[in-house]
């Protein structure tokens, strides 16, 4: 394996959790709900997935536990903001703080333990393609799922009727209600999808990226995922592009630092953020498309009058 391949492999590993968390939050936000608790749900997923893997010995059960943990945790957010109509921003921030705290508790017994790394699934034939094969077809299941989710969500939002309903609710929840669409129920599902994706992203961190449990191991990735959704103007392919761009620049700057290039390390560390923001602003310069894609009801509470 050449050095380029090795670097690209680490890029994929770094980008996958961002793509997963962003695609989930994208669906949540398309339904008009702003869940700022991505970081909390992600770190919960990481802790639960690691604990479940340690207890059962199976990383696959760990993944499922991480997904379920993220979804259940988001349900708390859903209950507070959708049923009790609490402020979404404040509740999301609280969810992050709570998630960081609880995950520390859950992970406490496992600090310092070496985990079980999720093994790659080799896809026959395709993995024999030179260069691309080992990169794309000798990966763990979470990578495959992340790509499938981007394709699936894109199809779901823009081709399926249920996706149309989600976009309609995000655009104008009052009209959607008047048409007989179940606004609250749909938003619950969208929030839980976001939670499940964030949980899966967390599981990737503690089972693939660094197979161990470290407190606060999400390390701000939830916030980056949130920013990616906005800069990608709520479109799945751009989330994928943004996630990989961010991953690529953050890995390259690590290598640059290791080589000891004469650029201050603080600047290099900031580079992924700058690069991602610049590129995504450039691709979303078409203001009309951005306006069409921005959920008009984002963050607004919905109370049906009855």
């Amino acid at each position, binding site marked *: 394996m050449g050095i380029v391949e090795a670097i690209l492999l680490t890029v994929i590993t770094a980008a996958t959790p961002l793509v997963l968390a962003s695609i989930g939050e994208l669906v949540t936000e398309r339904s008009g709900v702003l869940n700022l608790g991505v970081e909390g749900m992600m770190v919960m997923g990481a802790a639960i997935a690691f604990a479940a893997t340690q207890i059962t010995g199976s990383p696959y059960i760990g993944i499922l536990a991480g997904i379920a943990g993220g979804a259940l945790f988001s349900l708390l957010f859903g209950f507070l903001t959708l049923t009790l109509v609490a402020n979404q921003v404040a509740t999301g921030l609280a969810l992050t703080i709570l998630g960081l705290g609880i995950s520390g508790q859950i992970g406490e017994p496992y600090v310092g333990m070496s985990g079980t790394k999720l093994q790659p699934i080799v896809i026959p034939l395709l993995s024999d393609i030179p260069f691309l094969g080992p990169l794309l077809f000798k990966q763990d299941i979470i990578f495959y799922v992340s790509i499938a989710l981007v394709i699936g969500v894109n199809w779901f939002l823009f081709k399926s*009727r249920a996706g*149309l*309903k989600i*976009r*309609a609710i995000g*655009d*104008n929840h*009052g*009209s*959607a209600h*008047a*048409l*007989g*669409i179940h606004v609250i129920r749909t938003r619950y599902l969208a929030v839980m999808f976001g939670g499940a994706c964030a949980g899966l992203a967390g599981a990737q961190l503690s089972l693939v990226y660094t197979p161990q449990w470290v407190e606060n191991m999400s390390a701000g990735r939830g916030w980056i995922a949130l920013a990616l959704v906005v800069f990608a103007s709520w479109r799945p392919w751009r989330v994928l592009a943004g996630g990989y761009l961010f991953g690529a620049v953050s890995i390259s700057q690590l290598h640059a630092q290791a080589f000891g290039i004469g650029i201050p390390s603080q600047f290099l560390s900031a580079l992924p953020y700058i690069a991602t923001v610049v590129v995504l602003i450039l691709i979303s310069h078409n*203001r*009309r498309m951005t*306006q*069409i*894609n*921005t*959920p*008009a009801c984002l963050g607004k509470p919905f109370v049906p*009058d*009855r």
Partner: protein
Amino acid sequence: MSAVGASEGSPLLAVRNLTKLFGSFAACNGIDLDIKSGEIHALLGENGAGKSTLVKMLFGVLAPTSGQILWKGEAVRIASPGAARRIGIGMVFQHFSLFEALTVAENIALSLSPGISLSKVAEEASRLSHLYGLPLDPNAHVADLSVGERQRIEIVRALLQNPELIILDEPTSVLTPQEADRLFETLAKLKSEGRSVLYISHRLEEVQRICDRATVLRHGKVTGACDPRKETPASLARMMVGSDVASVSAAGTNTKGDVLLEARHLTVPSRTPFAVALKNVCLKVRSGEVLAIAGVAGNGQGELFDALSGEYPVVDPTAVSIRGKAAGNLGITARRLMGAGFVPEERHGHAAVTTLPLSDNLVLARSQSDRKTFLAGGLLGIIRQAVVRIASKRISETMDVRKSGENPAAGSLSGGNLQKYIVGRELDRQPAVLIVNQPTWGVDAGAASRIRQALVDLAKSGSAVLVISQDLDEIFEVATEIAVISEGRLSDSYPAHDLTREKIGLLMGGMYGKTEGEVAHAH
């Protein structure tokens, strides 16, 4: 689409003793209503008379507190809009329930039963839209369409359900006279197919022209049921308002005072993708004049108001001048200090902060222009609550603002009463220049006449008044001069008595380029 068979004997829809209570307040109180098959039935009433509440109950948006709804003689419970559509009731809302970010076809698909593919919806929608003379491009985004086109979507969406009863809420308030005529043709076609129409309006002339019967509501009760063609506008208005509506006495036209407001070659590029650019707008309003700007919604009225009021100042200072001084690059407060007053279009959230009491809304608008009166403590700017309250009370009394309590939240007032307050708030200063955008949009007849009279009186007292309106009745009532805005260009202004509705209609649609309504938007 097959004709709908007329049922004999029992009416298509009957409402018996229907009541809706909000707390102890009866929005609808023992309403009785019969709609026969194949009739166009008018529902008349002022704002707050209970029309919308009644219609929402018929369409399953609100649940009645008591009473019965009978559909073809059988008692039904309409629990949701979906249930209403299933039994055969379609609805075209006044404030369109469309999704701006979605395409026409997607909007239509959302209201259909599942299992129909999007392409099939698009096909069926274009077929229906042509059948009923309502041309539409299924792939256009709603955000790019005119209000008239949006209404067509609503109508086609309702028609796709093959309804036996179609409810239209104030459908012509946003249309040109020509577009309204097209709508009436569509309604006549629906009627000829045996469908019924419940037509909600406050335009008496229209109701007399197209409706077979009328039910009049006031304060949540039925105050009359009649054949509108056998009534006079005055007698209908009496049933609606409970007393004669004062007719507005127009301002004199012979006074040729100084030019107090002027726009010179005002050109503004469009701020957002959905906005209209202003192209070389020139206008003059003299002391004693009311210049009314007619036009169909979305032709640059909002942008013109923004530029004239200073909500979005322009680069060229001389493009707008107030009392002879260049003001184009100044903000709204500076222009207020020069003696101008402004009433923007939206009452809620723009002209007034709905959650704040009226007195606070008064201070917010006039804290700079009336700084000495309303604020104390120099730079500290402490609000003199007592003074503000007295001023607020004076405004409410002058404009006959009806409200619950001394100083309620702005949002708790009905639309008409809040509008009277925010117009009164500016008039109270006796501004030399007043610019009003849609002064009586969605306001009941009584309040509208009060507001129009106040505008005319202000002009008579020597101010220059500019009114932007879509309502031609209103324009002819108040204006001394009329200009028409179309696609961001303003026509010359003509003396009001030289213009007819037809001429204005032509200026609205056909002055520059294509005839409105002839082609669906070519986006």
